């Protein structure tokens, strides 16, 4: 599974050499963001740059491309050499010539990386217009079509003339790859290129990059925070922290024998794909139940009715049934568009279900009016994905925490006292009450979001991708906190996630959704341990790094493999 690393002694001249690279904000040059980075990449090699947010991975890649934000960041020292070209000293014109022809870059968010007002074929062709001036229009078009074929897009003539918004995320990332590789650059920089994609799409894109890399002999600088991806694709790994390189090792050595405590921590924090055993049932009281819940979206405009067009009714979720008992965690797992967030929002009554029932503590709330719903709202509270946007930046933490209880009639003094207790409960100092959200890190903000939800004393917490935006080490802490709160308060959690590793570690039961319907539902140990449905299997097979036991620093002795003919339990 792991690629054989290129031995240093046999290593040919590196394609890219970075020595002592320092980058600092223009306003405060004494506080560098990169404090002397060194690494090299050999021809055809894949070097993974890993580290948590703020470690300086992206800044490193932008410095190589000469794309550091003007007037904000500046390279203050060191050396970047791309096959004899000294990039920090190169003129702007020379850098422009090198971009796309000798070094290319693809980015994290394919949905926004393409110009929405240009056909994708033209956007690829633009690279040829700028860098290969001798080609005729026909020759350019042929080259683009050939490249679209190489990135394995279907119906290339149609794709050529498509607008970006007509393509899926995976297709757009293929367009970006085609654009990056059409001039066969020596170096491809990929900054989290699959992070925004679903696991099955991620697997295809990683495979594609690998194939094209082999065919053209491209060196790849791959930036990621995902150790699973690293284990699957890296030849060597460079671990970064706070603007410094912590260690650089061939992949297998790094995974088996990390030299530094920091790398060891990073690896240990990766949740195992192997599901934990469900906790013993202590309370059989059902706190949340969905009965044949359904949500359809459709256009019902006057125009549609007038022209007699049947209104388009797409079920975003249909026939959803589940029951959640006190103190347990039910995970809803699926890719984007599977309907998992729709279910969460229906349960919260943030959107109106179009059919079926939602029972909170035995009371059907699916069709209650606004006023009748109010007393039930506090029983079920939500934690959102992005703690940077879910807290009002203009309100102090105290104001955010007491707002809900005060709305429900608790005297302000009492609510404030309770808020202080809650902060202690989620592990934050009491003086946090008078501060504002921007003064906290992502992990701390998510703790505040949890405290805000708990202030309402709910029976159910709905966590929609609540740890997806967090670094693995912080993620582990927040998951631990949720687990502890559950034990102490007996709260039930509906946990929506796309991450099978997280689901395997936190859920008692798991429900797998695809295209708006439930394909598999049962104890996590069975659903994720020996999945029966083909879709669940494909998800498990696409999970990156599934052959490696990160916390154990060794390969897994039993790996989930697809055996279509048997449904044998694989992990036992």
């Amino acid at each position, binding site marked *: 599974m792991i690629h054989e690393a290129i031995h240093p002694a046999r290593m040919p001249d590196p394609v890219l050499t970075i020595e002592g690279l320092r980058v600092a904000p223009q306003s405060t040059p004494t506080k560098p963001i990169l404090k002397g980075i060194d690494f090299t990449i050999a021809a055809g090699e894949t070097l993974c740059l890993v580290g948590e947010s703020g470690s300086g991975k992206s800044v490193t890649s932008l410095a190589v491309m000469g794309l550091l934000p003007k007037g904000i960041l500046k390279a203050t020292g060191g050396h970047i050499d791309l096959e004899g070209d000294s990039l920090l000293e190169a003129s702007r014109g020379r850098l422009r010539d*090198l971009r796309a022809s000798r070094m290319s870059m693809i980015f994290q968010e394919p949905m926004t990386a393409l110009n929405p007002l240009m056909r994708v074929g033209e956007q690829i062709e633009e690279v040829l217009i*700028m860098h290969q001036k001798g080609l005729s229009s026909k020759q350019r078009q042929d080259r683009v079509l050939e490249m679209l074929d190489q990135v394995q897009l279907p119906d290339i003539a149609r794709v050529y003339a498509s607008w970006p918004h007509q393509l899926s995320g995976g297709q757009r990332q293929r367009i970006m790859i085609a654009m990056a590789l059409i001039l066969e650059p020596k170096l491809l920089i990929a900054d989290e290129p699959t992070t925004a994609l679903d696991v099955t799409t991620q697997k295809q894109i990683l495979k594609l990059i690998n194939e094209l890399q082999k065919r053209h002999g491209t060196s790849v600088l791959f930036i990621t925070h995902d150790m699973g991806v690293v284990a699957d694709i890296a030849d060597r790994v460079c671990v970064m922290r706070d603007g410094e390189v912590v260690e650089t090792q061939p992949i297998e050595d790094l995974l088996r024998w990390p030299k530094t405590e920091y790398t060891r921590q990073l690896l240990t924090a990766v949740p195992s794909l192997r599901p934990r055993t469900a906790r013993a049932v202590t309370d059989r009281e059902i706190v949340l139940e969905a009965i044949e819940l359904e949500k359809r979206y459709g256009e019902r405009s006057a125009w549609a009715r007038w022209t007699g067009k049947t209104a388009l009714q797409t079920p975003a979720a249909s026939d959803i049934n589940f029951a959640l008992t006190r103190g347990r965690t039910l995970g809803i797992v699926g890719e984007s568009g599977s309907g998992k967030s729709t279910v969460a929002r229906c349960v919260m009554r943030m959107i109106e279900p179009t059919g079926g029932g939602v029972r909170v503590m035995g009371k059907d709330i699916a069709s209650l009016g606004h006023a009748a719903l109010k007393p039930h709202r506090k029983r079920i509270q939500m934690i959102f994905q992005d703690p940077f946007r879910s807290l009002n930046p203009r309100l102090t933490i105290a104001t955010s925490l007491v707002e809900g209880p005060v709305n429900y009639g608790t005297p302000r003094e009492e609510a404030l006292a309770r808020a202080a207790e809650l902060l202690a409960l989620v592990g934050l100092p009491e003086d946090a009450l008078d501060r504002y959200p921007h003064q906290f890190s992502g992990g701390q903000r998510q703790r505040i979001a949890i405290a805000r939800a708990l202030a309402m004393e709910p029976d159910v917490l709905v966590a929609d991708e609540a740890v997806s935006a967090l670094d693995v080490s912080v993620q582990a802490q927040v998951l631990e906190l949720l687990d502890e709160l559950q034990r102490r308060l007996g709260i039930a959690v509906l946990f929506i996630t796309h991450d099978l590793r997280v689901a395997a570690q936190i859920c008692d039961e798991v429900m797998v959704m695809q295209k708006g319907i439930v394909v598999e539902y049962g104890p996590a140990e069975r659903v994720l341990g020996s999945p029966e449905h083909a879709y669940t299997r494909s998800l498990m097979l696409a999970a990156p790094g599934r052959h490696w036991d990160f916390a154990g620093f060794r390969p897994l002795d039993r790996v989930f493999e697809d055996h279509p003919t048997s449904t044998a339990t694989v992990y036992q």
Partner: protein
Amino acid sequence: MFSYCLRRTLAAVPVMVVVALFVFLLLRLSPGDPAAIIAGDMATPEQLDRIRETLGLNQPIYIQFFHWSGELLRGDFGTSLMSNLPVTQLMAQRLEPTVSLALLSIALSVVVAVPMGVIAAWKHGSLIDNAIMSMSVLGFSVPVFVIGYILIKIFAIDLGWLPVQGFKRISQDGFGPFIQHAILPALMLSTIYIALIARMTRASMLDVLGEDYIRTAHAKGASEKRVLFKHALRNAGVPILEVIGTGFALMITGVVVTESVFNIPGLGRLTVDAILSRDYPVIQGLILVTSGVYVLINLAIDLSYALLDPRIRYQ
């Protein structure tokens, strides 16, 4: 695309109906006898009766409305009380000076303001940016007539290059004399729009320049010029277009001061005269025409969004 255009066009119809209704009621529902309002203070009872009869004021109000709108559709806006000329004829005479002046001014504003805004955004935070933004504040805050008189003082009186006032029509006198007479009023009229459009262009460009696809364009090795004009400006276009359209509509109706300063026989002057002399049929006609211009310009803006942005086109 076709359905989008059709929907937008149809949506303009009810707006015009509401405007027509409002204009109609303006006169009928104002306190007192419309005939008395129209006839003025010095009318005899016989004159009042005659006016009631010609306006059909003896009939029920909804019949009056249908009657009145029927005549509108046939192009009959009534007769001016002052000059006894048909309202349509009065407006037609005044339309050309106003529209040609507005077109010249808006063209001037766009040609000057858009590059200024683009450069200010590109050199964001620099001396050039600050200079352009300060000039735009000045453009906003100096009253237009002051600018008009300063322009006349310099170019017409001191230098003697251009006429002090008056107007020549393209249709009668040709393009040369038109420009000679219209350039100062157009400059005066456009200062505020240059300021407005430059600010909007800068703000919109700054937003777009932070987008991921701009970074992609840089990563492809595109030159600054290409990034700014091929990738950024078109994406920044919608809000800019909105300001240009609204600006044009405002010019058609808001040129009173300019027309007074330069003594131009346009719609603005006609409006002032009609209001001062309570010439109700002319006022009604002017309101209808200017609202119609607003609606048409808004329609044109909506339709041009679709040309600009494929995501709207395929909705």
